[in-house]
């Protein structure tokens, strides 16, 4: 993916998107499907300007991002902590692994009813579901990374006089970073799906609520707009995470 792109390559890349937009608009313009049910891209733009002005969308987006920021940082933070600790102290692992492995197959969305029972319809129920989306992939991958470190690395470091905490911080943690990073990325995409689902089912604010509300009002163009905004947000944040974690910090891991 690092090669240079010629003008022709770039043109081809854009042509696909252009083609989709043109076909989509043509269907709406020529009325092949009722435009009230299948609005074209121009209708979506119009809806974005008139029906849900940018300030409204921004405020919904802020609500959603605040929820995911809390849930994700708590989930990923605790996941790294428990994953690393259980990877370092094997006896701790035998105790915490079993309950984690038992709860792990439950998809985050399946927690929604219990989250409402436990936390009500407020912010904490959403944060909890997002938390679960992040926690399980991160804890599993952090543990996997810690236990998968080459024993020779430890022997070499011990020969060089590193022990205890310094061995953990200087050797074990850096060596398991690629796995942790993978867990963080998977966790982010699960958290994001959980966020949207939680907002669809039980919320009065946020991007998920915005599109669910638009359905009740029959504003299909707004639903489409919301889906695009949610998709773009997911794409952008995932890209940022990938840049931050994989390209810079972990460059040496992938150099060989």
């Amino acid at each position: 993916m690092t090669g240079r792109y010629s003008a022709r390559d770039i043109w081809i890349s854009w042509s696909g998107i252009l083609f989709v937009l043109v076909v989509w608009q043509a269907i709406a313009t020529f009325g092949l499907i009722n435009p009230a049910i299948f609005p074209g891209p121009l209708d979506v733009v119009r809806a974005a300007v008139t029906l849900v002005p940018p300030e409204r969308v921004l405020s919904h987006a802020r609500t959603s991002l605040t929820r995911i920021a809390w849930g994700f940082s708590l989930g990923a933070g605790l996941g790294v902590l428990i994953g690393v600790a259980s990877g370092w102290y094997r006896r701790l692992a035998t105790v915490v692994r079993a309950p984690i492995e038992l709860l792990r197959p439950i998809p985050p969305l399946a927690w929604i009813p219990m989250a409402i029972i436990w936390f009500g319809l407020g912010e904490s129920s959403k944060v909890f579901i997002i938390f679960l989306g992040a926690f399980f992939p991160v804890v599993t991958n952090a543990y996997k990374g810690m236990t998968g470190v080459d024993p020779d690395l430890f022997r070499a470091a011990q020969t060089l006089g590193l022990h205890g905490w310094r061995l953990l911080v200087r050797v074990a943690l850096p060596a398991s970073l690629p796995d942790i990073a993978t867990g963080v990325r998977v966790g982010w995409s699960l958290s994001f799906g959980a966020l949207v689902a939680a907002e669809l089912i039980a919320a009065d604010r946020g991007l998920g609520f915005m599109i669910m509300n638009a359905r009740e009002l029959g504003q299909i163009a707004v639903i489409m707009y919301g889906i695009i905004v949610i998709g773009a947000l997911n794409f952008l944040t995932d890209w940022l995470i990938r840049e931050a974690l994989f390209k810079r910090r972990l460059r040496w891991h992938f150099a060989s």
Partner: protein
Amino acid sequence: MRTSTVASSRSQPPGWSGRTERAVGALTVAVLLAAWELAGRAGVLSAYHFPEPSRLAATIWDLVVVGFPVGVTVWQHVGATAARIVQGYVLAAVLAIPLGLVVGGVRALDQASAPIITFARSVATISLLPLAVAWFGVGELSRVLLIAYGCSWVILTNVIEGVKSVDEELIRAGRMLGSTPRQLFTRVVLPASTPRIFAGMKVALGLAFMVIVGVEMIGTIKGLGALIMEARTFYRSDAAMVGMVFIALFGFALSRLLDRLERVLLPWSGSLEEVER
């Protein structure tokens, strides 16, 4: 723990044997369940928020025999969920595999479709629920199509990557040995990309399982997702928890099945990492 013991345990196998580790794990779970039960009986945990394990056991029996809502047993829920997953999944495979084989083989098509596929994958499947409901109603069609949407992009990406990753040397060798384009495709490209395709199918099934629960929470009373949502509506936290247990078992069985299938069908393929998006 003293530093020296920690350090020495690094270069040695874990201190406890595998059997002891499993026993300790089982014991931990047993202790947690017992504590939960006792706390529930002593009134420390509210029966509504945390129905005790003994009540859950009774509810399992209830769900299997009587059903929740009454008349819909847990097997019917599992059946409904499985049927939706299978339909959506098969639809996705039927669409995405041939398409991916073509796109992966033609460079210009691959370049033109890459941004679309990347964006389509970023669109959270569950966010399409309101649109699907507006277009196709709250019936089965919406649910099956959403599963198909989620699965097809994952399968598509992996098929394209699989075709692209076929070793040039293999193709050249095949050509030199006089294979026709058709033979080249069926004898070289297809077998060489199969492990990757299968990896995509596996990830897609996991995704289908994640999505189905959410999709079932609206507009139906059948299916595991519907079961737990109905349970909440009627303040039956015990039924919701038992539903989650069945969802976990279902997911576990699903991944087991796929692992076995992979070993039988593709004994030569190791475990492949998921494709980067």
